[in-house]
């Protein structure tokens, strides 16, 4: 883990309020899909790092991609970044999606809701490199107002299914609805998105008798496990305090769904 300056190499708007930037950073050397970085703003009034998941990694080029929604001061500043601008970054933090148990025959299902889709893109890319062939990606969006950002990128690595809240594309409903409608088979699920979606996926996985690994979000201060700000109730005794309150930044952000009380 390091903290240092990262230089913007590319910056683009993907949809209304959704932006993508590629950054030159040492962090790319060791980053894994599912990990995140803390991005500092340039303002003395906004001092906490913004936890943003790493969307894609180019190890050789030393670059990482962040895809994010503008929700407040920090993400707005990042969205206005121009090529050549620099931001202070800390990372890579947390544990990525566990892929060590996958074999080329494993049927993998990626489920991303809204701004939860980006961290799964890097995973899809990695699975392709690993030779995992049966990868489905179910992506949920608001619909016409929000755009289907990153859906085209996912098509390079996976069979893509869409679900929209307004029914303007794909299944009219949730990502879980889309899995049922298309009768998608899977041995393992990797997911990221809003809490109600993750709860539904936890149930879906239990019903199918398969494992689901979900990436959680919480307000963070340090990002390194020191402040104990971002905890989630876990079935197992946690690694730090032994009180079943695991740190999302350190023991997560990816957890096996069965292990967390959501």
């Amino acid at each position, binding site marked *: *883990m*390091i*903290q240092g300056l990262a230089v913007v190499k590319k910056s683009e708007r993907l949809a209304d309020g959704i932006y993508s930037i590629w950054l030159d950073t040492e962090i790319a050397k060791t980053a894994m899909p599912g990990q995140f970085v803390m991005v*500092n703003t340039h303002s*003395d*009034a*906004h*001092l*906490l*790092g913004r936890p943003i998941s790493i969307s894609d990694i180019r190890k050789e080029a030393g670059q990482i991609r962040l895809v994010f929604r503008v929700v407040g001061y920090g993400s707005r500043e990042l969205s206005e970044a121009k090529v050549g601008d620099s931001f*202070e970054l*800390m990372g890579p933090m947390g544990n990525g999606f566990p892929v060590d148990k996958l074999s080329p025959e494993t049927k993998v299902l990626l489920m991303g809701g809204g701004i939860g889709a980006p961290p799964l893109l890097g995973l899809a890319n990695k699975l392709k490199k690993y030779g995992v062939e049966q990868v489905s990606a179910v992506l949920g969006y608001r619909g016409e107002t929000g755009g289907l950002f990153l859906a085209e990128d996912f098509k390079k690595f996976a069979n893509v299914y869409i679900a929209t809240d307004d029914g303007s594309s794909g299944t009219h409903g949730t990502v879980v609805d889309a899995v049922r409608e298309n009768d998608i088979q899977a041995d393992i699920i990797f997911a990221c998105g809003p809490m109600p979606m993750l709860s539904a996926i936890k149930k879906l996985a239990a019903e199918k008798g398969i494992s689901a690994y979900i990436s959680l979000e*919480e*307000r*963070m*201060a*340090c*990002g*390194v*496990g*020191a*402040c*104990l*700000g*971002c*905890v*989630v109730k876990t079935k197992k005794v946690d690694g*730090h*305090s*032994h*009180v*079943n*309150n695991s740190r999302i930044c*350190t023991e997560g952000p990816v957890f096996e769904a069965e292990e967390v009380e959501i």
Partner: protein
Amino acid sequence: MNTQVEICGVKFKNPVMDASGTFGSGIEYSEMVDLNRLGAIVTKGVANVPWEGNPTPRVTETPSGMMNAIGLQNPGIDVFVERDLKFLENYDTNVIVNVCGRSIEDYVEVVERLGDEKKVSMLEINVSCPNVKHGGIAFGTDPHALEEITKAVKAKAKQPVIMKLSPNVTSIPDMAKAAEAAGADAISLINTLTAMKIDIYRKKFVLANKTGGLSGPAIRPVAVRMVYEASHAVKIPVIGMGGIATAEDAIEFLMAGATAVAVGMYNFHRSSAMIDCIEGIEKFMKQTGIQDIKEIIGCVV
């Protein structure tokens, strides 16, 4: 040039340490920060048994600062000694263990347990956490309660005792005097200011605990004033903290009367914050012709 300071017979290579709760027990930052360079490591509060802490959200950003209501989640003294203290034995720096509890007995149990731990240089007694319902701040806002717990801890402690004071009181000098009269070896201040933030769109409190402790540069001028008042009210050494971000900030606290300083929330912003302070103090001393850091401690009266 001398940057060394001494508090209750304990020598510090420089006056810079972390504020309890903002640096874990050093383990969490050890990949990025050379712990050997710090004057001391002040650990996150530890109780006699593990504490779960509060529900989330526990933290939120505020203008030039943050609020927290962690509620002192901690692994308890057994795990702390086995894991955290053992880890810290590998480093050449003082260890100050921050002790929390729900009752005087809880505090004393931890203090006694640490008595034979050679790596522990000092104890800091947390009587000022605003985020727990029992113990914590209850002891730190009433001079009589503060005296009582200070006496009880001092009766059993084998290491020098620092009482960490709350700013949420009417008179800081009165609290400082109460701690001194009861036998405290030193005091540290300020802990966080009790605060509140409301999400106007959800019509709800931002923190699950409703209130939280405010820290960061936003509170610095308040902290400087209180450190000044406290250090002029008592003869025992004062460790100053509250929103320190840079060497200039640290020097301000030293000039106000603090013998040593702690960096808190700013560690979250920049992991090198304490190292930057240490280097900046040396630079300031060189530039302004100060031979010994003691020359600036309490120099503004």
